[in-house]
């Protein structure tokens, strides 16, 4: 789960990292009010969960409360990479001398968190990694020990930070580590961390991504989720504990197991079709879950056929078949359906479905081909 800049910086501030004074506003009048409180010289920053806000005109400097209001009106009306701007952060403008990057993320290959810093702050770290990799300093953190003070000092020295800032930089590093640790983050980054003309370190931009699997122990953070940014169907799917991702094709897929669901999408593509979604109904899928999944798939008007691919293991074929029947009674549709049931209780499942109006398939290849033909209006039951 991604957090907005203002949410990330609030968390950073809680762990002792200095951030600019500022507040978030949902309308231009509030933005003006905040600008007045901050003395007029502010930066108006769109709060959307994508990069490239500056280039899209989503970050603007204002020299007066009136200008802040005007700019907030503009920014609140635009879309950035398709996402509407619903909130702006109004921050006191900082006079920036130097920009630094400081972040922590999980290094899958090393199975440890890694702290990264670069003297080339203000640009995306992936870009720095590609163009000037020698400007990035990396330190792996032992997850059983946490960040050591000497590691923070090593990083400060590694990016040629003037010695007078080492102590404050180390404090910020420790604060970032605690923010990452205690929020169960998978990414916590300050970009840029600036040295101001008053010679202070300040986190002017921040980003956090949290581990969805750990949200159970952070109910306060879970509430920060911005559901505006994801397709409605994905929000609905989460309610039923379904793993669903919308794609732009026309063949709806309902599969048990994530790997098999991906393989099913791939095989549709391999035979010239386009999958409309990724959907894993999970193990032991109940009929209510199957019905909810079918509703979600059919809520996409691009869907011209649905392919059910169920390999019974924990999930029993007869139970899924009953779920499909129940769902079809509830969701009236003319969209053709292709089913493939294999494994535990598949025979019983096939018998249950024989009374429904469905195309059946034996193999995965056969199922994909039939679904594609059905979507084109060719395949009949």
């Amino acid at each position, binding site marked *: 789960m991604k957090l907005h800049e203002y949410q990330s910086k609030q968390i950073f501030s809680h762990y002792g990292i200095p951030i600019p004074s500022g507040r978030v506003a949902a309308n231009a009048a509030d933005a003006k009010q905040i600008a007045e409180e901050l003395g007029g010289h502010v930066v108006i920053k769109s709060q959307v969960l994508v990069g490239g806000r500056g280039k899209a005109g989503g970050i603007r400097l204002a020299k007066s409360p009136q200008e802040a209001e005007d700019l907030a009106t503009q920014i609140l009306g635009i879309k950035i990479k398709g996402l509407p701007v619903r909130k702006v952060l109004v921050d006191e403008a900082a006079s920036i001398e130097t920009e630094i990057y400081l972040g922590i993320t999980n290094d*899958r290959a090393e199975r440890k968190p890694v702290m990264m810093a670069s003297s080339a702050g203000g640009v995306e770290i992936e870009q720095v990694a590609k163009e000037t990799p020698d400007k990035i300093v990396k330190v792996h953190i032992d997850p*059983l020990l946490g960040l050591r003070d000497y590691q923070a000092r090593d990083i400060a020295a590694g990016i040629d930070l003037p010695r007078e800032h080492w102590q404050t930089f180390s404090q910020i590093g420790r604060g970032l580590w605690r923010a990452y640790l205690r929020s169960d983050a998978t990414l916590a980054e300050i970009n840029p961390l600036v040295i101001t003309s008053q010679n202070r370190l300040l986190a002017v931009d921040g980003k956090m991504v949290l581990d*969805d699997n750990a949200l159970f122990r952070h109910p306060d953070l879970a509430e920060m989720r911005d559901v505006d940014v994801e397709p409605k169907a994905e929000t609905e799917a989460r309610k039923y504990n379904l793993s669903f991702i919308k794609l732009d094709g026309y063949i709806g897929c309902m599969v048990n197991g994530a790997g098999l669901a991906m393989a099913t999408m*791939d095989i549709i593509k391999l035979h010239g079709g386009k999958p409309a979604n990724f959907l894993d109904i999970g193990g032991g899928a109940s009929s209510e879950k199957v019905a909810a999944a079918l509703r979600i798939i059919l809520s996409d008007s691009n869907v011209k056929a649905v392919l059910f691919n169920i390999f019974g293991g924990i999930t029993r074929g007869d139970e899924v078949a009953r779920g499909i029947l129940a769902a079809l009674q509830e969701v009236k549709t003319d969209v053709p359906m292709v089913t493939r049931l294999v494994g535990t209780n598949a025979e019983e499942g096939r018998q249950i479905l024989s009374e429904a109006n469905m195309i059946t398939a034996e193999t995965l290849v056969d199922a994909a081909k039939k679904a594609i033909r059905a979507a084109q209006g060719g395949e009949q039951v």
Partner: protein
Amino acid sequence: MSILVDKNTRLLVQGITGNEGLFHTQHMLAYGTNVVAGVTPGKGGGWVLEGKVPVFDSVRIAHEATGVNTSVIFVPSRFAADAIYEAADTGIQLIVCITEGIPVQDMMRVRNYLDQKGIRLVGPNCPGVLTPGEAKVGIIPGDISIPGNIGVVSRSGTLTYEVLYALKLVGLGTSTCVGIGGDPINGTSFIDVLGMFEADPYTDKIILIGEIGGTDEEKAAEYIADHLTKPVAAFIAGQTAPPGKRMGHAGAIVESGSGTAADKIKALQDVGVQVASHPEEIAELLA
């Protein structure tokens, strides 16, 4: 014959009285797996499945009473890391964790802890390990595979079942099937299992089933080139997965252009691994 689990496995089930734990214990017993004990804190002293398996309050007590040497974990994700530590601290050398949804920072701590102790974890978020005809530790359906000489290692669950079943349909059997799990941080990697299969005299051919996310398949390709003499066939799921989205498995995500199916397929093909275009084709490649 096999790697990891066999007739000598003395299995402990952690979380045995839960729905999943009980259901799968029944199936593991029916398969002939030597399930000798279960643990559910607070339910020690009882028995489950008509007196077939005794339940203990802790792994330590179960170990002392029955001499278990392998543990399979079905406890819910919020308690799973603790269950792994408990098994490790008791000195159980092989831990198979089925549980899905363990926080990734928990897994980083677990993995670093186990590495220091030299204890092997398979999973989490995996279907377990099946040695056909000998032992089923986990949830892989027993009847979809027959004994044979093909070693199977996979990050997936049902996709693996597809492959085992396709092999069985053409009369091919499996030495051992190892599900290493779909999480970004897990206990056992492709390389670990490839090394075991290379050393196992009962495995002649190997199937690797990967998916998008991370670089484990690329590392496996390097390892295959340097260390393996046995032929390997592979399938990689997720060629149509959009970047930046987690495809069901916590670890199945293309991040900053890295971890794509295309990269993995190329890395494997470059070292002479035959990569199937769909899962059913794997059986044809090895036939």
